[in-house]
Each structure stands twice: as structure tokens, then as C-alpha cells.
């Protein structure tokens, strides 16, 4: 059984996931996830804390070892299509006291293009500046990142992904604790991406805005509860299945495995 967002019309889907299982120290985090995403879609990934949403994104990029499963991005492995994927990690994942400027952070998105040991050139800085203008914080380019507000930090990370000019964007909670202006700016960027035929998979927490922001949703709680077009799948019943009724048996099995792991 493969819950699919749109029936695949060709084999070069931005993302195709089969039977994905990921375990942290043999404690399963996501079970048997399958998913197809077609181009030009804004996909929201929704689920309670600890449902494995971040792990799901990381597994797509081979950042965490997967126990089983196959992942294809534009018909190829992540390693081969890496240059077509842009990643926006969680804002809290880095130390914002680090001694670099906003522009420095954005140019990091170009390091792959610049190549090993080569210096950052003016055209790279200009591209980074343009990305900053796009997210609306062009005037902060030369500020130290420690002086940014939460929303500005998030926009910096978004600019770093934009500057890569990728085709598939993976975003880990870009809307978490940002101001209204930033939220608006991010939504605007997402729509522009969609118009340019790009695909974005976005972890999202605010259920109210889901129908407004996303074409399709993936309801995730260790496994895919439901996925598909927002107006079909985003129902009270599915949400209750995702958030309310914990999968007691799965929980217990997990817990038992972890206990055994501890005594090993």
C-alpha cells in the first residue's frame, strides 16, 4: 500500500519514497513510509512532536542511516541529485553567536558550486545579496548573525537555500516562532517557487494555516496516516488519527525494544 499524493505520470518525480524505515540506535522513529510527490507542489508535513518529521526530511538527504527503504529524487539517488535539492534546517540547529555575517551564511549555499579550496568571488556575493533581497532582508547583509531577530534568522536560512536555485526544497519548520511579516514573506516565496515549477516539502505546525498554504499534506505519526490533496485528506478524522489516538501497540513495541537495547 503506497499512499500517494498524485498518481505518478512519469518516473522523474521530485520525490519518491518506498518502505522507508529509520531507527535511532535501533529505536524505530519512522515505519514503512511511502510517498510520491509530483512537481510544482507545496507539500505540508504535519504531525505531533516526536512523530519523526525532521527524521523523515533527514532520511531523504541520507543524513541519518535508514534501516530499509528506497528514496529517489528526480529518478536518482540523493547523492546524484544533491545539487537539485535545497535544505532549510531548523533554526535552532546552529549557534547564532557564530562570528560570521548574514552574507557569509547565505554564500554557504554556493560553496558546492564554488568548489573546494576556491575563494568566494564577487559574483557569488552578488548572488547571495540577491537572495537576501528576495526574502526582504537585503539591508542586513553585513550584520553579524548574532544581531538578527528570529524571523530574520529564518529568512537568512531561506536565502541560503534559495541561492542554490534548487528544484526540490526541504524545509524544517520555517514558520516556527517567526513574526507575521516573515511568515508572509516565506509564503510569498513558496508561491513564487510553485509558479516556477519547483517543489517544496515543508514541516509545519500551525494547523489553521495548512489549507491556505499547502496543495497537499502528509499526516505523519511514525507512519504516514494519510497523504494527498489538502481538501481531501486534511479532515478532522485524519487529524484525530494523527494526533489523538496514539498507536498504543506500536508505542509499546518501540518501548520494549528500547528497554531491551538499554540492557544490551
Amino acid at each position: 500500500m503506497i499512499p500517494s499524493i498524485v498518481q505518478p505520470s512519469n518516473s522523474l518525480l521530485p520525490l519518491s519514497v518506498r518502505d522507508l524505515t529509520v531507527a535511532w540506535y535501533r529505536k524505530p522513529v519512522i515505519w514503512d513510509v511511502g510517498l510520491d510527490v509530483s512537481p510544482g507542489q507545496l507539500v505540508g508535513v504535519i504531525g505531533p512532536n516526536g512523530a519523526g518529521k525532521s527524521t523523515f526530511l533527514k532520511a531523504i538527504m541520507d543524513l541519518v542511516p535508514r534501516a530499509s527503504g528506497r528514496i529517489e529524487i528526480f529518478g536518482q539517488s540523493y547523492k546524484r541529485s544533491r545539487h537539485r535539492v535545497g535544505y532549510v534546517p531548523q533554526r535552532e540547529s546552529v549557534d547564532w553567536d557564530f562570528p560570521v555575517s548574514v552574507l557569509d551564511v547565505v554564500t554557504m549555499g554556493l560553496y558546492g558550486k564554488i568548489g573546494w579550496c576556491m575563494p568566494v568571488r564577487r559574483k557569488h556575493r552578488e548572488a547571495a545579496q540577491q537572495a537576501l533581497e528576495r526574502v526582504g532582508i537585503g539591508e542586513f547583509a553585513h550584520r553579524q548573525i548574532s544581531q538578527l531577530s528570529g524571523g530574520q534568522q529564518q529568512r537568512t536560512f531561506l536565502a541560503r537555500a534559495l541561492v542554490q536555485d534548487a528544484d526540490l526544497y526541504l524545509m524544517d519548520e520555517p514558520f516556527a516562532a517567526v513574526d507575521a511579516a516573515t511568515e508572509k514573506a516565506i509564503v510569498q516565496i513558496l508561491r513564487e517557487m510553485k509558479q516556477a515549477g519547483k517543489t517544496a516539502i515543508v514541516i509545519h505546525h500551525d494547523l489553521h494555516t495548512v489549507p491556505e498554504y499547502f496543495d497537499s499534506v502528509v499526516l505523519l505519526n511514525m507512519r504516514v496516516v494519510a497523504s494527498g490533496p489538502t481538501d481531501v485528506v486534511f479532515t478532522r478524522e485524519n487529524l484525530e488519527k494523527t494526533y489523538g489516538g496514539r498507536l498504543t501497540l506500536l508505542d509499546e513495541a518501540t518501548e520494549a525494544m528500547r528497554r531491551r537495547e538499554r540492557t544490551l
Partner: protein
Amino acid sequence: MRTLGALHSVLAFAASSLTDRSIRWPTWLEWQRVLFLQDYNTRVVMLGTMLLGLAAGMVGSFTLLRRRALMGDALSHATLPGVGLAFLIAPSLGLAEKSLPVLLTGAALSGIAGVVAILYVRNLTRLKEDAALGIVLSVFFGAGIAILSIAQQSVGHSAGLESFIYGKPASMIESDRLLIGCTGILSLLIMGSLFKELTLLCFDEGFAKSRGYPVLLLDLVLMGLVVIVTIIGLQAVGLVLMIALLVIPAAASRFWTQNLKQMILISAAIGGAGGFLGAAMSALFRNLPAGAMIVLVCSALFFVSMMFGTERGVVVRALRRRDLNRSVDHQHLLRGMFELQESRGPKAGIPFSELQTLRSWSSHRLLSEIERCRRRGLVFRDSGQHLSLTSSGMVEASRLVHEHRLWELYLITHADVAPGRVDQSADAIEHVLEPELIAQLEELLLQKRRVQGIAPSPHPVDATEHVS
């Protein structure tokens, strides 16, 4: 290649013939000889330790930012068994037992073994990195001490080996300085060419991985640099104090700058100065060991940086806080006077006692703020000690009151703050309001309500008649 022991005994003889065990103030001639680098031996040592400090300062910046600062400590302690084993094994390989390359190779190998052991303990057990560090550091160091004492009992000429523990730069010769210099340049080249990649590694490991950078390899390069610097530093400052050169200059430079390149340069400068001056002190005061002096000079520089660093030094931050407090007082005073004059008419002066009851400020604090405002021509004090705003004070106060009330309105209409509490809440935030935000507020509130001039106070503290 020379042997350590011979030089060691020569120097010990020289030292004991010059002075006995007492420390005395050097003569003018000695100052001159040391500080102007006239003495050959001292020159070799001072330049050598300076280069070491430069290299350690640079490498240390990255390890500090990677939060691996203590890894260097474990690594340097882990070199000791290697030194002892190399000494014991060398003769059977047909090499001179105290040849420096042999000893340093042994040190490097066991240092690397120590780091590998830490990684293993961390990955195979549920122990955290600090526990793994503590265990490996002490086990290797203990083993090293044991091996050294075996070496001393079984083989004759082991004197001088213990200088690796506390360092003995006086035994440095020209070729050592060359070695240190070359290693310094090598590490500079590596860090210069991998600057981008190392920065990304330290800032955002997850993103680096997602872009396909071999994070493990980059970490190994960084650890390799630490190994190199530590090994060449063993002779000069010793393995116990080596960590100081890796951590202190880098930590000190954080007080001066927010720019990574500058941070590395400043860190190198502090490390270099520490090495140079420390060796000079040791040359001047014959019985003070150089390793300890280098560390002490570095920590003195650290203390100066911590206090007077232009970016995050204690003094700068205290001044900034004082400025903020003053601007808060300034706003409170002008706003308070404005509102009092607003309610009783602009002509009447305000007695000091009334101002004091406005807020919970000490009379000293209030008086000094009044004095500052008087000097800037904002407040006027008449013969009866009553205070009033001058015309330019009125302009400034109107602006402040305007901003305050805008903010209050915003809080009431957009943030659901109760009108009774709004004054306080507005107070807490408005001191950090930036001009762009004020403009936004004006656009948001005033256009809607068609209020012109100064908005009326939204809560009933004072009469709401206002000056325009």
C-alpha cells in the same frame, strides 16, 4: 641529531653556575640582551615559541568554534605513553633512543590512539563525550608516567624525558625552530585553503552534510592540525600546558571581534605574543620555567581582552548597559515632565519631589539625569528649584510621548493588553524600538484613526488634553 640529555645537563650546569635557586631581578644588560634578541640561544627559543603560539592560536580558533577545545587536552596527555615507548623501543630498531623525531613520532601515534579511543568509548557505550575525554586522558597519562619510570629504571640515560610533561624550551635549537616554523606555515596553508569548508563545518554540520561535504574527513583534518601543533609544542610548553595555547588565545580573541578571519588573526597574534614574551620572561628570571610563563602571559592577555575587548569586553558591555539605563532614565524624565505639564498647563514649574514620586528611582539617579538634560538645554530650573521643559526639551519630550502612546495603542488594539497594564508593558519594550518600527506603527495606527500630532493617552492616568 643531538640528544636531549646532553643539552639538558649543559643548561642545568649553566643555570646553577649563574644563580643558585633564588630568583633575582635581571640587570639592565640582561634586559637589553633578551629584549633586543642579542643572545643567540634566547633568540632561537623566543622566536620558536612565538611561531608555536601563532600556529596554536590559529588552529585553536577552529577547534574552539567546533566545541572540541578539550579534545586537544586529551590528545596532548595521550602523547606521553608514546614518548616513553619510543624511548624504550628505539634502540632495538637501531636508532638513537633520544632522537627527537623518534620520540615525536611515538608521541603523535599515541596521541592519535587517544583520540580514536575517545571516539570509540563515545560511540560504543552510552557515555557522553566529557566522560570519554576524562577516562582516556587520565588512563593514557597514567600509563605514560608508569612507562617513563620503567624507562628510568631499566635504561640509563632517560633524564630529560620528563621535560615533555612540563616543557623545556631552553633545550630548543635552530632546527627545532625551523620545524616549528614549517609546521606553522603548513597549518596556515591548510587552514587558508580549507577556510570555507572548515567554517561551514563549525557553523552548520547538518547543512554541510546535506551538501555532500565529507564531514568526518574535515573533522579529521582539523584534529590532524591539532595533533601537529601539539606535537611541536610538547618540547616548548609541555603536554600539561599545551591546551592553554590552543584555547586561551582563541577565547581571548572572541572579545575583540565578531568576524571569523579577524578572530583567527587576533588569536594568532595573542598566541604569538604569549610565546614570545613568556620565553623572554623565562630567560630574564632564570629559575622560572618557560612553559608556565608562556601560559601566564597568555592568561594575562586573556584577562586584558576579557576586560577591555572592544566587542564583548566587560567594560564595553558595562558602558553599553549604562548608556541604555541613561536613555531609559532620559525618556522617563522627559515623558514624566511632559505629562505633568500636560495636566497642569505649560507655565507651572514642577517641584523635584513630585518628579521623584513618578518612578522608583533614587534621588541621586534622578538628579544626575536632570543635570544631563539641563546641560543639553532640555530642562530649565528656575530660582525656586522648580523644573520645566525648555522649548527644545518640549520638542524632544513630545516625540517620546508620541512614540510611547503609539506603542500603547498598538498593544491595546493588536496585542490585547489590558488598558490598566499597558503603560508598564509599553515601558518595557519601547526603549528598544527602532525608527523603522515607529514608522510602521504610525502607518498602522494613525492613518486608521486619523489622529494628528500626538496621540492622546489611551489610559486614564492624566487628563488627555494635549499639546500639538
